[in-house]
């Protein structure tokens, strides 16, 4: 099972096991990572599941859709080049060890 390391704004980190096919958002919300709000439930409509993907991982993710790109412009925390929506990151064996930084706010 692939693992994800979530790094909280205070730099504490948690390593969580994910199931293949689950989204990184689902992994976070089902494991009490409160920094991921996910108001739209993963439908790519709210931008409250924003994460910063660790630099060494960003190029290994599937490219973002136009919808995701537009939504990120409205994210509450600053948009950075490594910003993504965690509901659009689907876990797979090759993402084992993924590192995601959590922004300080989603709303």
């Amino acid at each position: 099972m692939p693992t994800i390391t979530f790094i909280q704004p205070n730099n504490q980190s948690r390593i969580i096991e994910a199931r293949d096919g689950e989204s990184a958002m689902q992994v976070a919300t089902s494991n009490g990572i409160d920094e991921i709000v996910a108001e739209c439930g993963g439908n790519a409509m709210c931008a409250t599941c924003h994460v910063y993907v660790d630099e060494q991982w960003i190029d290994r993710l599937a490219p973002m859709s136009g919808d995701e790109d537009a939504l990120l412009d409205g994210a509450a925390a600053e948009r950075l080049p490594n910003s993504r929506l965690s509901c659009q990151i689907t876990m797979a064996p090759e993402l084992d060890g993924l590192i995601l930084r959590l922004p300080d706010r989603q709303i």
Partner: protein
Amino acid sequence: MATIDSIQGATGSGTNAIPHLDVDPFALEFFDDPFPTHARLRDAAPVVYLDKWNVFGVARYAEVHAVLHDPATFCSSRGVGLSDFAKETPWRPPSLILEADPPAHTRTRAVLSRVLSPAVMKQIRDHFAANAEAKIDELLERRSFDAISDLAESYPLSVFPDAMGLKKEGREHLLPYAGLVFNAFGPPNALRQEAIERSAPHQAYVQEQCQRDNLAPGGFGACIHAQVDTGAITAPEAPLLVRSLLSAGIDTTVNGIGAAIYCLARFPDQLARLRQDPALARNAFEEAVRFESPVQTFFRTTTRDVEIGGSRIGEGEKVLMFLASANRDPRRWDNPDQYDITRRTSGHVGFGSGIHMCVGQLVARLEGEVLLTALARKVGGIEITGPVKRRYNNTLRGLESLPVTFTPA
């Protein structure tokens, strides 16, 4: 009583029988207290058949979610009410977004998503928040008032029509028009028939306001029309998309806000929690949308024979999704009948889910959040001071009257 009236014989091998239930989910007695019947529908089977209207029904979270996420099989273009557009003429020209399937839906949806995006919400936020503060101040001065007309209706009416760019005259048609639209999704009962009989002046108003010349620059309406210039939509499509926002953008939030106030009035411990931490305002609103489900139901129509929840449904059948029941399904939620403003609400289907999930959800949440934030800071207590009256609508759940007294913090 929990009786299953008959069991239809299994139609195919390996499929479960579908129980027939004598439930009318559009009857006034049902609206008075739908929750015990929702439980009965959920417990009967994953798929039920309602003889009263000859429709299939899904009331458990898993099946409601599955139907919402398979728009190719459970389509919207044959209407999301009981009426099947393949067999009956719709009462008005169909919506280009709600009553459309991909690929047509994909294009119109993209337009409204842009008009109501998170980035746009940032621009309107301060204005919506200032109006919310002013509304709560005004009501604290009055002390006793009707939380439906003076708050749940009055606040959205003070922000949304302006955000649309509507003229001041004629706005009194907006709520009756929306009430009509949501009644019309129901069966041909008195609610629907009477609404349609009285519809002409409201329809005339809305049709007129959807025209480009009647929409102020900078508003949502003008932004929709501007998409004609980019080629995203055609000129005749623009007014119909404006109509979608006028149909779905006000009465829904009226009932969402009404639900939140009614919850906070009934559950003082949750009001106390909110006052301690006003940052919970947004989730307190979201939880009210789960708990009361202002939009109770929508239909889909099957485009092929399909097996769902172990049962077979033929092609061309209407399937009623009980969103409100899914939102309280104990198979999905802990303590579903409790209003808990700290609950993880993500995944509720009060705004739908999948490709048709409410395109105005950010507007709704913004209104709910800023209003409950102002309330959390300024209001110490909410007391219900008179008879609570329910308002009946085939799709919307909410109150006609909620007399309350606010005490200052």
